[in-house]
């Protein structure tokens, strides 16, 4: 359970968010998010979280499920309980043993997003 420090946004477990979230500081997601997520700060996605969104963050620590593309300017860390379906653009990447990663990875200064389309919107073949 995340405790507020007065400078961060926390989406609690048991809460659903729909739309475009732009956080002013650090962001912690423990519930469900559908739409887009942006923060200049750090992003933490909890183990019980479900994020169906395109994400932009400074750094990210993921232990839940993401379905969407993610752009992290600093470090992206996928913990063992995480599940990522979508493209990743980041400077530094750490994938823990057991983490699920399905998508394209672009890294370093030359990295470019592979496209803005969310995986959830891709028509099934």
């Amino acid at each position, binding site marked *: *359970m*995340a*405790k*507020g*420090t*007065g400078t*961060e*946004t*926390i*989406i*609690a*477990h*048991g*809460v*659903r*968010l*729909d*739309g*475009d*979230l*732009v956080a*002013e500081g650090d962001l912690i997601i*423990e*519930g*469900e998010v559908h*739409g887009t997520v942006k923060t200049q700060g750090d992003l933490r996605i909890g183990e019980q979280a479900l994020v169906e969104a395109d994400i932009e963050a400074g750094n990210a620590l993921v232990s839940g499920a993401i379905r969407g593309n993610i752009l992290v300017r600093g470090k992206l860390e996928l913990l063992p309980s995480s599940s990522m379906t979508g493209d990743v653009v980041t400077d530094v990447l750490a994938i823990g043993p057991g983490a699920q990663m399905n998508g394209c990875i672009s890294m370093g200064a030359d990295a470019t997003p592979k496209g803005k389309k969310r995986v959830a919107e891709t028509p099934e073949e």
Partner: protein
Amino acid sequence: MYCYVYDEALQDRRFERELAQIETRLTDLGIAGKIARLALFRDANELIRDEIRGGVTTVVAVGNDMTLRRVLDAVGERKTVVALLPIGPQGAMTELLGMPTGVAACDVLSARIIESLDVGEVNGKRFLQSVHIEERADFVVDHGTYTTTPQRKASVEVRNFAAPDDAGMQSPIDERLSLILRVPKFSLFSKKASIGIVPFSTLRISYETNVTALVDGERLNGKDFVFRVIPNALRVVTGKTRKF
């Protein structure tokens, strides 16, 4: 010019000696002023507004949180400086503002460290501390670019300034209010809550049926609540030990 608004509870004889000591100390410090006494059947707003029209620049609530609340209601949008001189049983504001109780508060008043605090507003009603709404599952929070809905019963608190608790500490000078959603989590051994916190400037909470919100302890009924922050709206005398 100072005006001291005495809470009606201070008419009790047990406060007589302490009040006399305070009045003496205020005179020694050169900040004595008019005394206005709140009474059950007297309109506090009219009383205080008359004093402000008469040239009072600082209104001191002598009593506790509720006394301060009544002074704030009366001062409204005016830029009059407000202060709390705590006497008797206290709420959270005494510690948050860094005001000692009794005679010691006179010296803090005299030092006149003034901070401009944000004030919250819900459906046109101002609040300094927080608004609480009971646990419900039938509401939608509209933040403008996104909405949040609970997947089960959750209580709502919109906070400007309150004592630190499980939701941490929110600053009353950050030009933001905080939406705090508490979703209970049940286990065999304990009842905890998952806590969400979202800073905002304006938002709307809509319920399917009427609910009662407690706005700094006062009831407000309705289905739709529109919140906004009024930055730097209240000038308050604070002590060095204030909690922000």
